[in-house]
């Protein structure tokens, strides 16, 4: 397909609530459009970031181009663009959607519409996408597709009459989805002769090719040699190669023209020069104004990230720089901790974003990390009139210098079935939520509206929500602004020494409870050592909770039978490995995961 008829292109994404089957449907579409045989098919192609392909390039598979021969006998080019499904990534969803002309909405036939489904559909409608509903998991015994159809029509307000009833898992009726993509999702528009205007929706860094930009061409044409200009960053470079996305493969082609989705390389080496959401134009023949895609996103959640092995500090910096390339929201700056050494204070959109970055650093860059408890940005109004943004508890000024503090609030919508309303209201209450109202969207389902402090939901709110509603509640939030609050810094002392990396800021009324739980948690995490170790929580100089890790009395392997030394050695080696994952604070060894333990204070 060298010259592509714009009318035969379909650019679309799949939006869904987590676990409603987005990835499975993507797999089926890729499989059934025939570019991959069943044998080649790797499960969950789109989610797999470890795919090492041609020339050793690791692809973060954000887009796949496949060819579909429709029932009308024509071949269509499908560009399936992946969208993150979580509320943390509203911005990322937004720029992925901007690259599409339509969206497939996948709804679970048993669970129906969830809060996130709503949020994502509204985002898609904001981008003028045609939304095409699909009801998945009809093979489940609890499936009730008719009810779900009604729900889509009532709650979301889009026509679900012809929604294909499918099982992405078994492949049942997926053919109908493919046909509807052809019929219902509009072909792209745009003038190939106009000045170049292309939206960057993702990018990856490759050591041979430099930055590889994933883009949607809105207007004009780009090919090898085109002098391109990034309109927001001002960076310029000549295009080296353009191409399209196979399944996990870069397929070079002559040019990309209006309506197409593909990649561009331009031997850009500086990862800061291309930003997702920026507009590419032709430096010699620029377009009038950039696409509205780019906005600077600000992190909501901060934490410290430290390499377990101090010598890996430069590696961590390099890895963060590379990740930042296709993650405009990730921010970081160097910081130092007495307990953890040199590391970075990193900013994220939310806790899930944090976890994903952490996992990618560990998995893709082979780094072993210690992460400190996440913190939101507090505004500290000092007595001298200064206002400071506090992202690291360690930097909190002395209480005598503080006039008052403010913390960020969110506006939360929680969708829940009626029997769990009480339990969820209790949860919101515990998390200092302020009830704003409730409405029934159908007989048995309601939306609860709350205002909640962000620092109450960044740890484990989502888990608590799920466990208290047996998985039936769903949740979405948006930022509301700052509100004055009584906050204190809680310090943790291990063996009488303050461990800076364990300090956190907490609502004064919750401080005792938190301090107590933190001490209990650390007691469970810190293995017994040769001497007794007191663990204390303190506000200023006042101790508010204490636990003790008793001294190790016995650690002996008495029996060593029949000369089986290897087994004994393996046990010692395992013990040694555990020791390596410890941090020495004073003369106490603290397991690295203890630094994350504040995250799970509420799981009982």
């Amino acid at each position, binding site marked *: 397909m060298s010259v592509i008829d714009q009318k035969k292109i379909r650019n679309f994404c799949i939006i869904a609530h987590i676990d409603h089957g987005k990835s499975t449907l993507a797999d089926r579409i890729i499989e059934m459009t025939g570019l991959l045989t069943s044998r080649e098919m790797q499960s969950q192609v789109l989610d797999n970031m470890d795919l090492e392909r041609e020339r050793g390039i690791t692809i973060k598979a954000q887009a796949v181009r496949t060819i579909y021969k429709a029932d009308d006998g024509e071949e269509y080019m499908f560009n399936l663009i992946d969208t993150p499904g979580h509320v943390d990534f509203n911005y990322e969803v937004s720029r992925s959607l901007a690259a599409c002309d339509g969206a497939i909405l996948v709804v679970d036939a048993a669970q129906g519409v969830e809060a996130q489904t709503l949020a994502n559909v509204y985002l898609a409608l904001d981008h003028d996408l045609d939304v095409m509903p699909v009801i998945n998991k009809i093979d489940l015994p609890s499936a009730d597709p008719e009810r779900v159809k009604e729900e889509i029509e009532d709650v979301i307000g889009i026509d679900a009459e012809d929604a294909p009833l499918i099982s992405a898992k078994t492949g049942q009726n997926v053919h109908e989805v493919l046909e509807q993509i052809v019929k219902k999702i509009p072909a792209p528009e745009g003038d190939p002769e106009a000045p170049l205007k292309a939206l960057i929706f993702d990018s990856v860094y490759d050591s041979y090719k430099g930055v590889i930009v994933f883009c949607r061409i809105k207007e004009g044409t780009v090919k090898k040699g085109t002098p391109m200009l990034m309109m927001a960053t001002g960076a310029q470079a000549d295009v080296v190669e353009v191409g399209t996305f196979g399944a996990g493969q870069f397929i070079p082609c002559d040019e990309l023209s209006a309506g197409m989705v593909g990649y561009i390389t331009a031997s850009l080496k500086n990862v800061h020069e291309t930003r997702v959401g920026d507009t590419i134009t032709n430096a010699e023949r620029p377009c009038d104004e950039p696409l509205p895609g780019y906005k600077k996103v600000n992190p909501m959640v901060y934490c410290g990230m430290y390499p377990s092995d101090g010598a890996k500090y430069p590696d961590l910096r390099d890895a963060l720089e590379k990740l930042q390339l296709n993650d405009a929201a990730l921010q970081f700056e160097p910081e130092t901790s007495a307990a953890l050494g040199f590391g970075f204070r990193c900013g994220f959109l939310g806790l899930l974003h944090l976890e994903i970055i952490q996992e990618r650093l560990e998995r893709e860059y082979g780094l072993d990390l210690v992460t400190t408890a996440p913190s939101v940005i507090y505004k500290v109004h000092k007595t001298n009139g200064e206002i400071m943004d506090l992202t690291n508890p360690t930097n909190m000024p002395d209480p005598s210098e503080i006039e008052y503090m403010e913390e960020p609030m969110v506006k939360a919508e929680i969708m829940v079935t009626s029997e769990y309303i009480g339990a969820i209201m209790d949860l919101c209450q515990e998390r200092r939520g302020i009830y704003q109202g409730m409405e029934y969207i159908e007989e048995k389902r309601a939306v609860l509206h709350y205002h909640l402090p962000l620092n109450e939901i960044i740890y484990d709110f989502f888990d608590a929500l799920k466990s208290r509603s047996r998985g039936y509640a769903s949740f979405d939030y948006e930022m509301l602004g700052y509100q004055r609050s009584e906050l204190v810094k809680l310090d943790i002392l291990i063996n009488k020494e303050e461990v800076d990396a364990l300090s956190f800021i907490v609502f004064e009324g919750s401080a005792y409870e938190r301090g107590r739980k933190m001490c209990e948690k650390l007691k469970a995490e810190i293995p017994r050592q*040769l001497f007794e170790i007191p663990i204390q929580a303190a506000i200023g100089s006042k101790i508010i909770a204490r636990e003790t890790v008793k001294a*190790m*009395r*016995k*650690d*002996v*392997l*008495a*029996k*060593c*039978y*029949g*000369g*089986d*030394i*290897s087994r*004994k*050695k393996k*046990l*010692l*080696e395992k*013990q*040694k490995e555990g*020791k390596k994952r410890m941090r020495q604070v004073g003369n106490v060894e603290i397991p690295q995961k203890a630094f994350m333990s504040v995250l799970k204070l509420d799981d009982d």
Partner: protein
Amino acid sequence: MRDRDLELYVHIPFCARKCAYCDFLSAPADEETRKAYVRALAAEIRGKKEEYKEYRVSTVFVGGGTPSILDGDDTARIFASLYESFRIRDNAEITMEVNPGTVTVEKLAAWKKAGINRLSIGLQSADDRELRLLGRIHTYKDFLETYEQARRAGFQNINIDLISAIPGQTLQSWETTLAKTADLEPQHISAYSLIVEEGTPFYDRYGQKENEESSGLLKRKQTEAWPPLPNEDEERWIYKRTKSFLEERGYHQYEISNYARPGYECRHNLGYWDRKEYLGLGLGASSLVNNRRFHNTADMDKYMKAFRTERSDTDIDKNIDKNIDKDIYEDVEELSLQDCMEEFMFLGLRKTDGISRTDFSDAFHSDINEIYGSQLKKLEKEGLLFLKDDRILLTERGTDVSNMVFVEFMF
């Protein structure tokens, strides 16, 4: 050239019934299986003749399982092949593990004739209730009978195996066991602390604390049939009492769990701590030869296939193929210099008289301070080791937390 010393370990993976704490490679089997195993074992032994002709065997240890479950003929057959295939020193220490309830006068005579000069008898406890709990097949009285028979048969070097920290055990019941044992004046006493191993009935009861707490009803039931394990403090009390008690009775401790009358330390076991070369024969048996550690397959079918013969013993030799024999080696590990140093430390320090700096420099041509200087200093400061002239020893506290000490020497 001086002959190299070799220790032999021969494994008999059969027992009358599996004990509740036992995770060794052993199971009940019918007589036919046992006979077939002995044939295969004899074939394996004969296959080693050429490879080990330069060695002189200093100790033999027949362990299990319950080796005494074999009849006299089978034992004789195994030893015939050992004498035929290895050069065994005249003064070799030759030990057989024995369990009460499986010993007869005929067997004892056959063992004596086979050259066995040391018996290791598994008593474990002198308290019948504790024995039942452990799942032992015998009573204290059964043991006494076996012990007397062995003495009458002329065995002069006997070890008695004991287990401490049995569920429900008290310091008092343990002292009774120690007293009854010492009264018999065996030459050697092994007293191991019970370790709850995965895959045993004990593990199901005592392995996971969470399960224990899971249901109040279940917990009450457990306390009747399954009394609690002694806690750590009680266990250490028991351990310390063992040492002082046995010292009063003329037994000195020479290793974490072993006590002997002077001159009766188990040479075979000391060999393991001193990193002497040893060859394991039989199912799953471990070896250290030429700085390689390996063990035989633990898969009975595989083992039997490797040394199978349907014909008489005399034909076996022709069927031995060295390649087959290699196939049953598993987890072959070539020890690096660092591996050897680690082993030197964590095996040697188990002995009550510890390790010698001279031995270290003789073995590795470097001074121990160059390799482990900082660790030794730290551990001495923490009161876990003490350094006395040429020797380095665990302190009492160091013995309690010996794994924490050993880990320091791992690279």
